[in-house]
Each structure stands twice: as structure tokens, then as C-alpha cells.
């Protein structure tokens, strides 16, 4: 007998997500992911001053605005032909890096952990799904203690970002050509002083909590594997020409490592609420024409594909492509890779903060541009983010955004192939259809 289950809303995510499940014999047999909100950022960009994009597009996501702003800045820099000075590259790495730490802590302690750990007996921790919460009482208490401690640590991360970014969320200093803020010594020491506290928390609490949790939930190393393809745009350039990055650009398709070339990216909309004729186009060739009542469609998320393949993006994809983590692909591998990535970044930040040069340039002038195109490819904490801009007569004519959640939570594509999260849900055991906590664990492992 097949039971139909709807998880709507999926809470503890950024944005509006719904998941439909077909459960048969105690296992998920089919799954559909629905992004249920459309705001129309790509349409809003049209006809505007191109430079406004790096401010406006940050408002796509209040958790990773830094990455959207950076993608926009990079696309504009390509279109305008301007290169930021070294200080700006380093400050951008610092801002982006500390926001990764903020986002990963927030994801583990405040979004995902309540699927594994019993919260305090008060709102907003109650009610919760009934299920197999397996930690012994003391360990459970320790993690909840860290829930509150992590609130403080993630706040510090935003203070560090604001030192160079003006304010957070939605920083203001990254502009095409560089960064407006100056790396003065007081800002450098203020950043470094807080960084030590953050590193200690990551090393002594976050990573051990994740690896400890994994021991009690070892079966989740076998649950939620998904499409087994990865894509990363690469992030944290280590030199002016972006030849080396802390996480390299690349793909992993059907078990083989490969290069990443944007010409192989297409967005498909057979099952998304957009006009059919716009399907299967390369980003800048595409168009966004919403059709809210389209038959057979079930999501506002388009289905991006690489060489026609669904691809998982995020910390596991980055760590996998970079050769830092290749244990496996599952709920627990995603969670562990995210924590180990945080550790790697927090240590890189210690190097980078020492590389800033007070008194030297932070911004090169970006003149006006009448015509041009640019692509801005980077990685948000939750995965690959790409912005594409076409400028005609000094205005933005077309703007395309592929955020990470489009890759991970995509609906079926034109060939009816499921998206990565949909595929990962297949086979997930569901003990009690009224309390599908196992599915929640799979969903949250993607940080949707």
C-alpha cells in the first residue's frame, strides 16, 4: 500500500520548501520537491543600472548575501573589464570565509540538529516529531548547550564580517573593482581577536559534536546518497588571476573527475512553473517567464543540469572535488564534510588576516560600460552560485541567477530525471508516516 505524505512547510530552511513523498513498505518510493515562492529577482534587474545588482541581489538570501553580492561583483568586473587589487581579494575572502563559518554553524546547531537531538521543553523547540532521538541524556544536553553557545559565536562571525563589510546581513562595501572599506590595523586586530574564539569553538565543540553525533547515527552514512554527481564553481582565490583556489572548480560525473565549463549548463523547466519554450537554455540564452498554473509543473525552482546531469552542490561537493573528503555520499557525509570544511576555512582565515596591507589600495575604478556580458561564478556556503549579466546601452538587459538550491532542490528535468534531493530521498526508511523524521534528516542535510 502506498501512503502519500506532504511535508509543507519544511521548516528550518531559508525560503519556502515543500516535499511530497510516496511511502511504500516503510520506504520512500518517490519524492517531489517544491520551491513554493517566486520573487522575480531576474525580472527586477532588467532595465536597471548594472552596478545596482550587487546590492539588490544580496537580498535573495539573508544567510548568504555575501556570496550573491560577490557573484554579482564578479560578473560586473568581467563585463566592465576591471580587476580588484590584492587587498580587495583578501578582504573578500575574509568576508566570504567568515560567513561560511556563520552559515555552517547556523545550519548544524539551529536548523538541522533538532532532527537528531531533543530540544528544551518550550517553544519554539516544541512540538517536534516523535522519533528515535538516540543521544544519551548528557550528550543531548551538551549539544543543546552548544546550540545556545553557537548563537553567540555566529553573531561574532557577523561582527567580523561587518568590520570590512559595513553591516550584516547585506554588506555594502563590495563594489565592482574592489572593496570600499580599508584594512586598518584596528580592524585587522579586531577580526583576529574574535577569530581565535571562533576557531576554538569550531575545533573543540562543532567538529567533535558532528563526529560524535555520527557515531550514534552511523546508519545515516547509508541513507540519502542522491544523484552522486557533484559540481563546484570553486571559491577563495589564492592569487590575483584566480589560478589557485582554496576549493577548486570542477565536476564529478558518473564517478569521474572533470573540468567545469559553463557552456554545459542548462536550465530546464518542464516541471517548473515557467513557460515551456524557455526550457533547456544556457543561462544567458534563457529567459524567466513565470506561468503559475502550468499543468505538470510543481515548483518555482528550475532544474539546472550539467551536460544533462543533475548535480549536488555544497560542502560535500566542494570537499569531494578538491580531494579533501571522499568517504562516501550520504546524510552523515554531508554533515561531516560541512564541519570539516569549516575547520579548513577557519584556519585559512588565520593566514589571510595576516596578509592584508594597511595603507595599500582596496579599489580600482570601474568606469561606466555601455555594452558587455559577464559571468560571476563563486560558491555560497550551501553550494555553487552563478550570476550572468548582459548590458546593453548602459542598462541591464538580461540577468540570470542560478543559486545553489536550484541545483539541490530542483524538480524533475525535461527527461523526467529527479533532482538531487528528490533522488536522495528514495529508499529512506519511514517508520511512522505521521512523524517522517528520517526524511527531515535527509532534507536538512542539503542545507536547503
Amino acid at each position, binding site marked *: 500500500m502506498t501512503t502519500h505524505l*506532504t511535508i509543507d512547510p519544511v521548516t528550518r530552511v531559508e525560503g519556502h520548501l515543500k516535499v511530497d513523498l510516496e511511502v511504500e513498505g516503510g520506504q520512500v518510493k518517490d519524492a517531489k520537491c517544491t520551491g513554493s515562492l517566486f520573487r522575480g529577482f531576474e525580472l527586477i534587474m532588467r532595465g*536597471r543600472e548594472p552596478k545596482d545588482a550587487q546590492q539588490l541581489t544580496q537580498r535573495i538570501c539573508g544567510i548568504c548575501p555575501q556570496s550573491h553580492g560577490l557573484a554579482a561583483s564578479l560578473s560586473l568586473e568581467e563585463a566592465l573589464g576591471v580587476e580588484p587589487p590584492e587587498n580587495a581579494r583578501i578582504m573578500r575572502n575574509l568576508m566570504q570565509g567568515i560567513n561560511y563559518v556563520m552559515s555552517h554553524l547556523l545550519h548544524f546547531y539551529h536548523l538541522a540538529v*533538532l532532527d537528531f537531538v531533543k530540544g528544551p521543553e518550550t517553544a519554539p523547540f516544541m512540538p517536534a516529531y516523535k522519533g528515535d532521538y538516540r543521544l544519551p541524556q548528557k550528550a543531548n544536553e551538551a549539544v543543546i548547550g552548544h546550540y545556545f553557545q553557537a548563537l553567540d559565536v555566529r553573531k561574532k562571525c557577523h561582527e567580523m564580517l561587518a568590520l570590512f563589510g*559595513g*553591516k550584516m546581513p547585506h554588506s555594502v562595501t563590495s563594489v565592482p573593482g574592489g572593496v570600499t572599506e580599508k584594512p586598518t590595523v584596528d580592524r585587522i586586530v579586531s577580526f583576529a581577536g574574535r577569530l581565535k574564539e571562533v*576557531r576554538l569553538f569550531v575545533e573543540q565543540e562543532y567538529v567533535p559534536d558532528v563526529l560524535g553525533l555520527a557515531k550514534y547515527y552511523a546508519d545515516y552514512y547509508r541513507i540519502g546518497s542522491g544523484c552522486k554527481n557533484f559540481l563546484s564553481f570553486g571559491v577563495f582565490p589564492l592569487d590575483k588571476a584566480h589560478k589557485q583556489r582554496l576549493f577548486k572548480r570542477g565536476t564529478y560525473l558518473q564517478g569521474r573527475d572533470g573540468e567545469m565549463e559553463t557552456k554545459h549548463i542548462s536550465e530546464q523547466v518542464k516541471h517548473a512553473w515557467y513557460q515551456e519554450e524557455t526550457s533547456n537554455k544556457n543561462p544567458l540564452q534563457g529567459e524567466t517567464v513565470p506561468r503559475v498554473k502550468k499543468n505538470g509543473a510543481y515548483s518555482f525552482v528550475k532544474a539546472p543540469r550539467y551536460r544533462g546531469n543533475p548535480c549536488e552542490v555544497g560542502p560535500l561537493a566542494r570537499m569531494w572535488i578538491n580531494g579533501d573528503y571522499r568517504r562516501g555520499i550520504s546524510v552523515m557525509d554531508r554533515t561531516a564534510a560541512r564541519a570539516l570544511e569549516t575547520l579548513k576555512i577557519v584556519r585559512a582565515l588565520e593566514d589571510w588576516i595576516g596578509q592584508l596591507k594597511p595603507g595599500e589600495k582596496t579599489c580600482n575604478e570601474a568606469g561606466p560600460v555601455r555594452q558587455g556580458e559577464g559571468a560571476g561564478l563563486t560558491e555560497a556556503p550551501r553550494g555553487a552560485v552563478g550570476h550572468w549579466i548582459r548590458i546593453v546601452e548602459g542598462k541591464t538587459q538580461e540577468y540570470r541567477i542560478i543559486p545553489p538550491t536550484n541545483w539541490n532542490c530542483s524538480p524533475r528535468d525535461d527527461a523526467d530525471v529527479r533532482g538531487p534531493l528528490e533522488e536522495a530521498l528514495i529508499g529512506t526508511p519511514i517508520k511512522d508516516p505521521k512523524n517522517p523524521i528520517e526524511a527531515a534528516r535527509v532534507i536538512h542535510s542539503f542545507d536547503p
Partner: protein
Amino acid sequence: MDRKGLTRRDFLKLFGLTTAGIGFGDSLTSSALGQEGVRKVLSVLEGIVADRPKVIWFQAAGCTGCSISLLNSVHPDIAQVLTRIISLEAHQSLMAPCGKQALNVFEEAITQKAGKFILIVEGAIPTAEKGLYGRFGEDENGELTLLHWVKRLGDAAKAVVSVGTCAAFGGIPAAEPNVIGAKSVGAVLSKPVINVPGCPPHPDWMIGTLAHVLLFGLPDLDEFQRPKLFYGKEIHANCPRYFDFEKQRYAKHPGDEGCLIFQGCKGPIAQADCPQRLWNNGVNWCIGSKAPCLGCVQPEFPDRLSPLYAALPEEKIRTKFKPPEKKKP
């Protein structure tokens, strides 16, 4: 000072940072679970105040940035807010319940706690196509929308607070061409709403407004329903660069010293206490970081303040301030 005098090792030592660190291999075998070190933190839970005022936070068409800004509150910190000041009955990004269970929390607030909770809305409300650009849950008759929930929650609430410029004025979702018909919360409800705009709002503005409602009732509001306490004066009037403006010393590029008015600064029309309050534990603010104010607390944001990096028309500045010298820098 000779910058080269300080080696990287010296620099790291100065802050007690590490050069060696533990390898991944070591971390994989260690576990801090069960350690006693968190006892102090857990004491926060022993101080949970019973019968805290109930707050329902509803996220509509937004980006979660207002919620994240709330988490950045310094005094009181967010743990104090959650355990001692309010009972956050629902908040999509933080609540443990999922799916039907989560939907029931909102439904029960309407049917069983009407008049007993404060509603905070984050995000604009999509109204085109009967609200179908923003779907949220379903009942026996089919899909429900953000519009449906905001109307019902708003009707049942004791007071409604719109946080962020999207909820207060429509904000970026309502920017041209606004195919989703995004509207402010005030525009879809029949009762008065307190607006706490900003993209995002400062945590002090949100918590301060909430505290005012809880302790002293409705705060003094301006023409845009914003508490005068926080939005009482133009940023320009309190700007540390006002003297540069007076002396007609203008920044030629973003990042330069001098008044940022020709870099698009909206300080002369934007009303908020950012110059004194500062952001993120007081470490910085927009103009402090040499970037122009975007005017994000204003109903005109973003369309009527675009292009964002273009100078305000002179007549807009003239209403309260002496206009800048005609000749550009």
C-alpha cells in the same frame, strides 16, 4: 612602522592563533559529547520564564535577513529574548515542528489564541494570481497561500509588527515590474500595523519596538508608522561626514574620504539612528565603511532611490539641508 618587521608567525602568536593545528584524522577520533563544559550555558535554560508573551513570527516573501539580524542582537542577546522575554511560538526558520505539525501551530494560534499573541511579519505579501506566487501549506480544499495566512493571522493578532522594508513597504519584491503583486502587510490587513523597516532592520529596532508594545503599549509613530524613537532624524543630520558636506569636500569614488553624496548617499532623506547606534555590536555601519547609505529604511527603497549609486536630485536634499555646490567633484 615597518610592516615587514612582523612575520606571519609573529602575527599569529600575537593573537594566540595556530600554525600547526589538529589534522582531520585526529578530530575524527575525538568527541566532546558529554563534556561538562556546557553546564554554564545550560543554566540559561534554568532561567526560562513561564508565561512569556506569545509571539508568532511569519515569514512571507523575504530573504530571512531580518530574522538573521534579530539573532545578531547584543543586549539582550537572542537566548535571553527567547527564554526570558518572549515565547516564540512559531518561526519557520527556527521552529522544531515540521510539515503539518508546524502548520497546526499557526492554525491553533488563530483558532485558540486569538487576541493573545503579537504577530511579526517578515517579507512582502504576493497578491497577484490570488497569491499563488507564494504558497504555504494546504487544506482539504487545496493549496494555501502566504496571503491567506497573513490575513488570518493578522486578524487574530493582538498587534501586528512588520519587520523589514519588504513587510513594511513592499521593498525589493515589490520593485518593478512586480509580477507577483507584492504588497506591504499594512496593505493587505484591515488593522493598523507598526512598521520596523530596514534591509534588514537593526536588532535594537526590532527588540526595542517589541519591548515598547509589551511594556508601554503603542510607541510614538511617524507618518510611515515607524517608531520615532529609532527613525526620528535624517542620517545626514547626524553623519560624521556632515562637516565634509558643509565644507563641500566630496568623495570622488566609493571608498574615498569626504561626503558620499555624489556616490549616491541617501543619508539626506533616510531617517534612522544608524550613525549613533552603529551595527553589529557597534563595529561599523554603511557610511562608516565608506559606502553610501542606500536609504533602505524608506518607503521609496529601492525603485524611487535608484540608481543606487546616483546622487539624489538636488531638490530632495534642499527640503532640509543646504544644497551641495552645483559643480561636481
